[in-house]
């Protein structure tokens, strides 16, 4: 009976972490539905990017207000998690404040956690105001209706509750320490919760213990819940920002991939010595390769990782020239659609014993329309703006490739432009022999 709390705690931990591992497995499986892509080059730049952009938050501070607040929440999140380690050990072994032996250093740690917790509360409140009262434009675009809006607020509420639980727990603990209650060692510094403590002045010791235990349990259960909430939320970025910035673009932003499958065919067409029949006999096994992307499986796995990493911050969309001038295109929506469709495909696989059964839907048309795709100027503003190295443009281009090469579905004017290039080597209908006329005009 004495060990009951320890056992319950261990169980909660196993269930919480177990679910989390299951989610991560599903996530990895879904990302691996994407095509292979070579990301083995330039490891040192990749490491630098990850350190600078994910760890160092370098792109967040481009917008100073949001950036600064985000750094607070981010640092708070990481540092306060050291406290979680203590909670876990205490929970498993029935100890209390196991790190208290560190003395002065422990006081310093707890003291700084408290200050950070307070700052996190302030930041979270401002974030909430920005979303709901100041109503900053980029949080109000059409793709933010429904779950994405709720998700954004829920995260803030959860963080707020967790911070309050942490501070309440400390405040009651402080009271108990001062009463000299058994088990409650005198340890820690409480620069913030000392102001909450007086609220509990008239409460008796046994009730205080109940309060303390309740706050303690809710705090750790809340953290386990939050861990499992990630998979369903834009908050997944706290984990994926790291791999995503590592695997993100290292080449110049203007460089689009050259499709290898096309290179093979073009070489064959241009090589006068190639035997036209040889090509047909060595036709690769199975279906010929599809050009471009009409569904998530046609994208590469980094693009799918991108989709899961998206924070839905809308910095891309707010910089997008098409979006700013009232076009339907929103690079954030491209990422959100990709994630939603990927989730749908994942659920389909789960429901059909690991096999995807065609559902008559795809990313193109059912999620992303041609009108959005053709509005893009390929200006890279979205790529530049993204704080976690996401490349919405590469998905747009991949889908245009499908439209043009598999469906011949380019807008008419573009078809004219392309046949001009085919016929006379320029996007306009001029004679190639006149290419030098400008010299004498």
């Amino acid at each position, binding site marked *: 009976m004495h060990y009951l709390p320890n056992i319950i705690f261990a169980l909660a931990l196993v269930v919480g972490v177990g679910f989390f591992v299951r989610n991560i497995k599903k996530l990895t499986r879904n990302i691996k539905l994407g095509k292979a892509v070579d990301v083995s080059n330039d490891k040192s730049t990749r490491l630098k990017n990850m350190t600078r952009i994910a760890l160092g938050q370098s792109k967040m501070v481009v917008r100073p207000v949001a950036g600064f607040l985000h750094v607070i929440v981010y640092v708070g999140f990481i540092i306060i998690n050291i406290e979680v380690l203590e909670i876990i050990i205490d929970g498993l072994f029935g100890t209390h404040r196991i790190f208290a032996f560190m003395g002065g250093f422990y006081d310093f740690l707890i003291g700084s956690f408290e200050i950070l917790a307070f700052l996190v509360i302030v930041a979270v409140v401002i974030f909430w105001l920005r979303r709901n009262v100041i109503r900053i434009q980029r949080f109000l675009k059409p793709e933010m209706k429904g779950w994405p809006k709720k998700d954004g607020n829920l995260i803030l509420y959860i963080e707020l509750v967790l911070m309050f639980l942490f501070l309440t727990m400390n405040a009651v603990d402080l009271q108990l320490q001062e009463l000299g209650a058994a088990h409650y060692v005198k340890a820690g510094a409480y620069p913030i919760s000392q102001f909450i403590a007086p609220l509990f002045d008239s409460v008796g010791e046994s009730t205080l213990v109940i309060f303390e235990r309740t706050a303690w349990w809710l705090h750790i259960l809340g953290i386990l819940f939050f861990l499992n909430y990630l998979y369903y939320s834009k908050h997944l970025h706290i984990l994926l920002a790291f791999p995503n910035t590592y695997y993100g673009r290292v080449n110049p932003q*203007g460089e689009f991939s050259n499709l290898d499958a096309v290179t093979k065919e073009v070489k064959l067409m241009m090589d006068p010595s190639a035997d036209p029949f040889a090509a047909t006999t060595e036709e690769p096994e199975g279906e010929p390769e599809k050009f471009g992307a009409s569904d998530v499986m046609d994208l590469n796995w980094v693009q799918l990782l991108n989709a899961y990493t998206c924070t839905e911050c809308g910095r891309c969309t707010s910089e997008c020239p098409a979006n700013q001038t009232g076009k339907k295109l929103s690079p954030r929506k491209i990422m959100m659609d990709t994630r939603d469709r990927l989730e749908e495909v994942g659920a389909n696989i789960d429901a059909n014993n690991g096999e995807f059964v065609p559902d008559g839907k795809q990313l193109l048309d059912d999620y992303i329309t041609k009108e959005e795709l053709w509005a893009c100027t390929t200006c890279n503003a979205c790529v*530049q703006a993204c704080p976690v190295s996401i490349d919405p443009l590469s998905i747009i281009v991949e889908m245009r490739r499908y439209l043009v090469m598999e469906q011949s579905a380019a807008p008419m004017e573009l078809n004219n432009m392309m046949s001009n290039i085919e016929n006379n080597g320029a996007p306009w209908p001029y004679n190639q022999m006149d*290419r030098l006329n*400008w010299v004498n*005009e």
Partner: protein
Amino acid sequence: MSEQLKVKTMEQFMAEGKQPEILFWVGSAGSYDDRAKKISRAFVKLLNKANVDFAVLGPEESSTGDVAKRAGNEFLFQMQAMMNIELLNGYEIKRIVTCDPHSFNTLKNEYPGLGGKYDVIHHTQYLKELLDSGRLVVEGSEYKGKRITFHDPCYLGRANNVYEAPREVLKKTNADLVEMKRHKQTALCCGAGGAQMFKEPEKGDMDINILRTKDALETKPNIIATGCPYCNTMMTDGIKAHEKEDTVTVLDVAELLANSL
């Protein structure tokens, strides 16, 4: 107006058994578009002035395929690229300069993977080189006291991180360089890229070039400087839409420098 320009083709260089210092990739716009042709001429005027031994491909040049690639037609792009690469490699071209950031980007970044490896630079970078080495010297002060704002072309700036070269060339004209609120990394597109130049825009409440010229007009410029033939068209149209064509002109960096010598 035309003073005689000295332009030799690669074919002529070959016949003389010589190699040029650099190949000027004129590009389709620079060859055929009435406005862009003037930019090609201004650039060549500068090359002549600096005694640069350069060549063009003339009728042998063909679209880089860039615009086809951005539109999604990878086939057409690679056909064009391979044809051009065969030609360029046949001539053993080492160095290429172009006034078109789109050609610059694709030649520099996308041709190498298909076997075309050259040292490719934008004309603003080359002009800076010529100024730095003293081969070009600014003597006039045509633009002294004039306010010039530079519009960063997406495929020069964000795409390839070239921000300083055009500005340094512009400073040499003795004009007052004023920056738009969004410039360099955060510059707004002119609206022409990604094959938009060749089609009507999708439904919206404004054309992109109108918004971008608004940015430019806020700096109260006398001149909007560009480094791309497509930006030039877009900004010129934008100025007209704002009914400012009498007070604000749109000129390429090469034209501004050519007028300043």
